[in-house]
């Protein structure tokens, strides 16, 4: 009985295997007969020997105890059906084997047909509920035909389970591959986002640098002339508006308003030499023409092509004659409270830094003025402010403002209100700079 398997399981295992016709995995259905009765083995082999399913025959293996079955199952993970006796080396040796298979070997696919000769030891109702078996047969009722049918059905069920497992594992592989793809894509995205953030940080740093540079230029300006008032209305980013004013040793006053191409750092870098040069040249008494010429040459030499300074330069003589040059900014005005706009100083030359000074027209207007006249200069951000419909504020509206509020103390505030009302919530796109010079001021 049980002594066979216990004496030398390895030995018996080899002996039993010698009986098997072939051992090529996958080509036969392995069926394990576990019973301590040699006769049962003999009869079962007779019944099942010619069982064939799906073109594959069977390989019948025999174990004579639960212990021996464990060894065989350990060596043959692909057993499809087990015909299992209950009472062998112990009362419940077969039941222990079921637990071992399902829970320790973790094999849920092998079909187990419990075949007992003593149903009193293992009542069907209790067993089928408590143990993961697939069929329960009493040896007395199990005819050859019924045995054959039960095993054949079990082989088919095992095959289906195997197919499902293959599909499942294939799906799992696909999911794993797809997950890996997604993970890589995610990594790429994260890297791109980090790169973008780095660019953004650098850009922000450059913009802050540009703002600080321009702020230094503006701060260094001593625009404390009693006859000059001005207002800078910058947008967040340093856009490069520039206003400079200085008095020459002989009393002439020079004012310049400028707007660099582009935004940020390039504009700020351009502003530095222009401010220095402006003060140096005016300080040594140069006139408007040579001032324009030296700033233009400096910029043309030093700025990369494509970067230039649109500017309006005004010289007010001690005789209050205004000499004015405009290269690329909107018209400046001479106006008075009573007569409105009397003179327009329109652009008649290229912006500074585009061509060598020899190619500039130096088309300078000379305007005589009278008491009460004021000069109003501004950057293009003012007239080019756009409302949500894309319409520009324009010179007409500005002239209207000048007529209405021109000489008043709150003129700039009125202009700002008008522009804000016109923008109607649209953001201001460009710096706005305004300056007003009272002529014939005592």
């Amino acid at each position, binding site marked *: 009985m049980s002594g066979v398997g216990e004496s030398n399981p390895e030995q018996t295992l080899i002996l039993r295997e010698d009986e098997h016709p072939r051992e090529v995995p996958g080509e036969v259905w392995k069926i394990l007969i576990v019973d301590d009765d040699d006769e049962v083995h003999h009869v079962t082999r007779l019944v099942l020997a010619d069982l064939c399913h799906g073109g594959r025959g069977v390989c019948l293996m025999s174990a004579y105890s639960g212990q021996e079955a464990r060894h065989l199952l350990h060596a043959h993970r692909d057993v499809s059906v087990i015909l299992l006796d209950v009472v062998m080396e112990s009362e419940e040796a077969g039941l222990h084997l079921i637990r071992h298979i399902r829970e320790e070997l973790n094999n849920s696919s092998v079909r187990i047909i419990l075949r007992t000769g003593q149903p009193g030891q293992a009542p069907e109702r209790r067993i089928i509920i408590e143990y993961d078996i697939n069929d329960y047969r009493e040896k007395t009722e199990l005819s050859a035909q019924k045995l054959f049918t039960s095993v054949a059905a079990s082989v088919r069920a095992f095959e289906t389970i195997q197919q499902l497992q293959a599909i499942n594992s294939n799906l799992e592989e696909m999911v794993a591959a797809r997950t890996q793809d997604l993970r890589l894509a995610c990594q790429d995205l994260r890297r791109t986002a980090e790169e973008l953030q780095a660019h953004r940080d650098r850009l922000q740093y450059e913009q802050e640098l540009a703002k600080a540079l321009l702020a230094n230029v503006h701060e260094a300006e001593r625009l404390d002339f009693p006859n000059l008032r001005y207002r800078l209305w910058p947008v967040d980013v340093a856009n490069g508006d520039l206003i400079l004013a200085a008095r020459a040793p002989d009393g002439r006053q020079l004012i310049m308003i400028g707007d660099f191409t*582009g935004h940020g750092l390039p504009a700020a870098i351009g502003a530095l030499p222009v401010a220095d040069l402006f003060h140096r040249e005016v300080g040594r008494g140069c006139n408007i023409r040579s001032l324009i010429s030296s700033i233009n040459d400096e910029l043309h030499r030093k700025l990369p092509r*494509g970067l*230039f300074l649109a500017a309006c330069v005004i010289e007010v003589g001690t005789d209050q004659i205004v000499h004015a040059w405009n290269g*690329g900014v909107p018209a400046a005005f001479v106006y008075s409270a009573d007569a409105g706009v009397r003179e327009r100083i329109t*652009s008649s030359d290229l*912006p500074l830094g585009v061509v060598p000074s020899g190619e500039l*027209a130096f088309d300078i207007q000379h305007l005589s003025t009278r008491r009460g006249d004021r000069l109003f200069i501004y950057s293009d951000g003012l007239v080019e402010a756009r409302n949500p419909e*894309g319409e520009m504020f324009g010179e007409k509206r500005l002239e209207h403002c000048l007529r209405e509020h021109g000489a008043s103390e709150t003129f700039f505030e009125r202009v700002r209100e008008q522009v804000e009302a016109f923008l109607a919530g649209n953001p201001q796109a460009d710096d706005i700079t305004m300056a007003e010079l009272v002529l014939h001021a005592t």
Partner: protein
Amino acid sequence: MAISVWENDDHVAISVEGRFDFNLHQAFRAAYRNCDGSSTRFSVDLGDVQYLDSSALGMLLLLREHAGGDGRKVALCNCNPPVKELLKLARFDRLFTLI
């Protein structure tokens, strides 16, 4: 596309559409960068430009330099009135051929 380019033997025609501003910087430069500037005439069709800023003027200056600094070789075509006004404000009519 905001920028389209047609090329034949000695002529590159660039067409700009919409807002001509700093955002077109790379695309505009790419339109002519590979042409031999010394032997090519350029035309820039601004007919469909609704807006042009100083960066655009800077880009046109770069094209002019690519063409050897000769304004007769760079034509600005179909400028609508606001665009023409801005080009004249900056006196770019002296640097380019406006047609």
